[in-house]
C-alpha cells in the first residue's frame, strides 16, 4: 500500500486540542484532506459514509473507545482493511498486546513528536 497524501485521514479524539495538534502535524507532513470525530461512534458513522485512507485514533473516549472502534472496523468486511494507528496515553503492556491482537497497524504513546507520527505513518504504508 503506497502512501498517498491526497487520501482522506480521519483523526478520532475526544480532546479538541489533540485533534488540532494532529491535524497541524498532518498538514505539515503534506496531508490536505483531514476529517475528525470525537469518539468511536461518530468515527464509525463517518467511516460508513466515506472511505478513509487512514484512521488515527485515541483509546480512551466515551461512549465508544478507540479499542472498540478498532475491533468494529476489523470485523466489518467493508472497513477491515483500513490502516489504523492508535495514539494514546494508555501505555501498559496489556494495552499494546490487546491492540495488536485486535489488528492495529501501529501504536504511538502520548506525548509524541512530529517525527514519531511521520515515522509510524510511513511504516504503516511500507508494510
Amino acid at each position, binding site marked *: 500500500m503506497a502512501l498517498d497524501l491526497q487520501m482522506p485521514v480521519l483523526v478520532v479524539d475526544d480532546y479538541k*486540542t489533540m485533534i488540532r495538534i494532529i491535524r497541524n502535524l498532518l498538514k505539515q507532513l503534506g496531508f490536505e484532506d483531514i476529517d475528525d470525530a470525537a469518539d468511536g461512534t461518530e468515527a464509525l458513522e463517518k467511516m460508513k459514509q466515506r472511505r478513509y485512507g487512514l484512521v488515527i485514533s485515541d483509546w480512551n473516549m466515551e461512549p465508544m473507545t478507540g479499542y472498540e472502534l478498532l475491533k468494529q472496523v476489523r470485523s466489518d468486511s467493508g472497513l477491515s482493511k483500513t490502516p489504523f494507528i492508535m495514539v494514546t496515553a*494508555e*501505555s*501498559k503492556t496489556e*494495552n499494546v*498486546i490487546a491492540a*495488536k491482537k485486535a489488528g492495529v497497524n501501529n501504536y*504511538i*504513546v502520548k506525548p509524541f513528536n512530529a517525527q514519531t507520527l511521520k515515522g509510524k505513518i510511513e511504516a504503516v504504508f511500507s508494510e
Partner: protein
Amino acid sequence: MANMKQENVARVIDFLEQNKERDGEVSLTDVMHLAEVMSGSMHDFLSTVQPTVTDELRAIGKEIARMKSEISQLRANDMTGNKIPDAGRELDAIVEATEDATNTIMEAAEEIMGADTSDPEAYQELVSNKMIGIFEACTFQDITGQRISKVVTTLNYIDERVSSFIEHLRIPGDLDAEVEETDEERRKRELILHGPQHDGEGVSQDDIDSMLMDAQADIDKLFD
C-alpha cells in the same frame, strides 16, 4: 443462690403439674401466669449479673463517647463542605488555565505557520508579536503551580485526619469491606482503560516498536 434456683424451678414445675390435665386448652391468663412465674425465676439470675452488665454498658458508653470525639476531630463536614469542593474548584481552574494557554499558543503557532512571508519586515513583526503572546500564555504555569500546591495541602489535610481517625479507632488493616465493582470500574477493566502512566511505569515507544516489529513472537515472550 443454688436453693433459690431450685425454688424457682419448683414453682415452674408446680405450675406445669397443676395444668397438665388441661389437654392443650390454654388461655391468655395462663400464658401471663407462666410468664410471671418465669420472670420471677429469672429475677435472682438478673440480680446477680446486673453489676457486670452495668459495667459493660458503662464501658460501651465511654467507647461511644470517645468515638464521637474522634469523629468530631475528623471534621468531616468541613472536608465535604469546604476542603474537597475548594480543591475541586482549584482543579477546574487549572484545567481552564491550561486549556486557555494551549489555545493561545496554538493560535499563535498556526498564525506564524500560515503567515505570508513575501514581506520580510511584516513577517518578522508578526512573529515577534506572536512570540510575546506565547511567552505571556506560559505564565499560566506559575498560577497553576500555586493552585496545585493548595490541592496538595488539602489532600495532606484529609490524609492526616483520616489516618489519625483510623489509628484512634484501632481499625485493623484487613477490616476493609469488600466493595462491589461499579459500572464505571467494570467498563475500565473490560476496555483496558488505565490512563496515563508515570515515568518508568508504562512501556516506552521503543518497547512498543520492538513489540510490534516482531509482533506475535515478542508478545508471546511476555507471557513466558
